[in-house]
């Protein structure tokens, strides 16, 4: 039997013409086409997710860059602001923001009379509520800075309240206002009339980038100023610490380290550190830098230190890769003319590897800039309105950070903060985009094929 098989002529399975596909081949080709479509579909899903994510953030956040302002002419009545009439700064300071609120109400009333706009059932006080609760403070700061203006009538642009702003951006409607204790339909009608009269208008909002955070009732005044500075300080700390330490560690491991157990342990350690969840670095920062070393909470220095430890593995891995890509012939040439090993590395290898190192560092910084979780644990979520001082003292002052500010805003109840948070993300993403673009440019510009 087996002999017959072994010696038998080949079975005539494929005797059919090659020019006609048999049914089985047709089926198999259909399966092939299906499989290919699955792959294409998967890629499309991935890209779709990206597009969806980006459009969702942009459509939610673009509004944060526009803000509604109310233009009013405020008479800085002397009898209210400076009863003694001597412009003494200490006396002026005694008038609290509550003392300024009536001025705005008067200005609002004047504006309504001037434009001839009146809405039935809307008191002057309610009409004044069109402007942000932040406005009296704005007025007070102006007066304290320019006491000579007391008694004059000055034109101010006040932020409109969050609900009014929301109305012009479509977030608040007449129907929702009926149920809302913070805004009434009458106020919205007034707003409509004011928009036509040009008193209320939407404009680009620099305050969003420069102002500090504001409390939960004043979303319209909340800005990213402190967060941007905090993030900048932390990046400064990361750059100053992580770059030299990372490069030094890489040079040792790549150029000097003997191949032994200790080096092995360090290498395994670094690759594992790169994959440790970021929250664990937060625990480390809390336990070591704050509880043990006694550094202040919410300080950029602590955030910077934690992010440095997180970024180090990234920088070390990138630096080692670019040191490795420098061909040994360069080292041999330098050693050949009598340079010491150290001179070879610092004079020849390091400069050639510099673009790669820089690229890796920027990518590490970009990662650090977007990191949130560890910062939550070291107290960066605190509500900070004060701008930190300049470095180096400012590094120890409380500050916020961009991604943490986003988190902070998501925890507030007023829906206007959703827009703020998304807007903050747009700012964050723009920074990341710039950093990555620089990294790609560096790579393109200096990439060398040996």
């Amino acid at each position, binding site marked *: 039997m087996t002999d017959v*098989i072994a010696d038998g002529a*080949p079975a005539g*399975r*494929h005797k059919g013409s*090659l*020019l006609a*596909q048999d049914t089985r081949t047709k089926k198999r080709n259909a399966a092939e086409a299906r499989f290919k479509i699955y792959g294409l579909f998967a890629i499309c899903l991935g890209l779709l997710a990206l597009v969806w994510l980006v459009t969702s953030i942009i459509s939610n956040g673009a509004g944060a860059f526009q803000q509604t302002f109310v233009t009013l002419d405020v008479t800085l009545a002397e009898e209210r602001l400076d009863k003694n009439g001597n412009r003494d700064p200490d006396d002026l300071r005694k008038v609290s923001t509550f003392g300024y609120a009536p001025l705005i109400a008067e200005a609002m009333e004047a504006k309504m009379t001037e434009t001839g706009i009146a809405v039935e059932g809307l008191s002057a006080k309610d009409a004044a509520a069109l402007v942000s609760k932040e406005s009296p403070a704005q007025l007070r700061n102006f007066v304290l800075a320019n006491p000579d203006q007391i008694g004059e009538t000055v034109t101010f642009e006040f932020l409109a309240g969050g609900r009014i702003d929301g109305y012009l951006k479509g977030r608040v409607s007449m129907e929702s206002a009926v149920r809302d204790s913070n805004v009434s339909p009458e106020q919205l009608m007034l707003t409509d009339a004011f928009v036509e009269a040009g008193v209320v208008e939407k404009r680009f909002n620099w305050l969003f980038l420069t102002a500090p955070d504001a409390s939960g009732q004043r979303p319209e005044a909340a800005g990213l100023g402190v967060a941007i500075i905090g993030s900048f300080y932390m990046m400064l700390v990361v750059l100053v610490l992580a770059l030299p330490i990372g490069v030094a560690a890489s040079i040792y491991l790549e150029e000097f380290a003997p191949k032994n157990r200790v080096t092995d342990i360090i290498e395994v350690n670094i690759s594992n550190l790169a994959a440790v969840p970021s929250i664990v670095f937060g625990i480390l920062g809390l336990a070591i830098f704050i509880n043990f070393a006694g550094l202040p909470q919410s300080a950029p220095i602590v955030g910077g230190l934690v992010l440095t430890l997180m970024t180090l593995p990234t920088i070390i891995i990138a630096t080692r890769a670019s040191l490795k890509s420098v061909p040994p012939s360069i080292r041999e040439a330098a050693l050949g003319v009598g340079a010491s090993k150290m001179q070879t590395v610092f004079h020849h290898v390091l400069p050639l590897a510099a673009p790669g190192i820089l690229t890796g560092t920027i990518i590490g910084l970009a990662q650090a800039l977007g990191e949130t979780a560890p910062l939550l644990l070291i107290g960066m979520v605190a509500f900070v309105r004060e701008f930190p001082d300049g470095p180096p003292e400012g590094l120890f002052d409380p500050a916020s950070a961009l991604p943490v500010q986003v988190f902070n805003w998501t925890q507030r109840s007023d829906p206007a903060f959703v827009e703020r948070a998304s807007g903050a993300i747009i700012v964050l993403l723009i920074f990341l985009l710039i950093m990555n673009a620089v990294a790609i440019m560096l790579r393109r510009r200096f990439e060398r094929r040996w």
Partner: protein
Amino acid sequence: MTDVKIAARDVQVYYGDNHAIRDVSVDIKDKTVTAFIGPSGCGKSTFLRCLNRMNDTIDICRVEGDIAIDGEDIYDKRVDPVQLRAKVGMVFQKPNPFPKSIYDNVAYGPKIHGLARNKAELDEIVERALRRGAIWDEVKDRLTEPGTGLSGGQQQRLCIARAVATEPEVLLMDEPCSALDPIATAQIEELIDELKQNYSVVIVTHSMQQAARVSQKTAFFHLGYLVEYGETGHIFTNPEDPRTESYITGRIG
């Protein structure tokens, strides 16, 4: 029964801008071993890979001219390379068993082509293929072990068994012994001699002795041209082209 199995006319192959095969025309006979010889880079492997359209997998490769098997143009638009390759099997330079068991390595082809209706038939096909590959006796007790665990020569015979399992009519071999030691080479050569009873075998080889030992017809390639094609004995004893002579006597190569 020495009719023409494969007929190639004016075949040109380009790799991007590189003109790798020029004006090759050749008739390959059925139930014969045909050897392609020539110095490295002469195009013999490239031409071999045209015969089962393996060059399709290389993006920049372009084939012109006619190649017909049993009178059917294999580069016709209607031809499915999948069906073609079932008819024209191939064995490669380095043994490349799949990371599967010995049994699955051989059963893979019959399974995808639907040659067996049930497990018993499949077993039969696998056994027959392994016997044809002259490796049955060595592996029959360990069919479930991975094919990668065999020795180089065994792996290559396994690959031959894998190729014959789909019942091809033509068997292409691209330097099948170059990665093997002399003993394994001898076994493979013996096997090739047996295979020619059922198949048309085309073998590319670096070794002139091997070509002389196993083939009936020999084609000499040089710089992309088919220089000379004829009976093996004739080519080795009485080459007509001076280039063939130089190669055979070891002056070029």
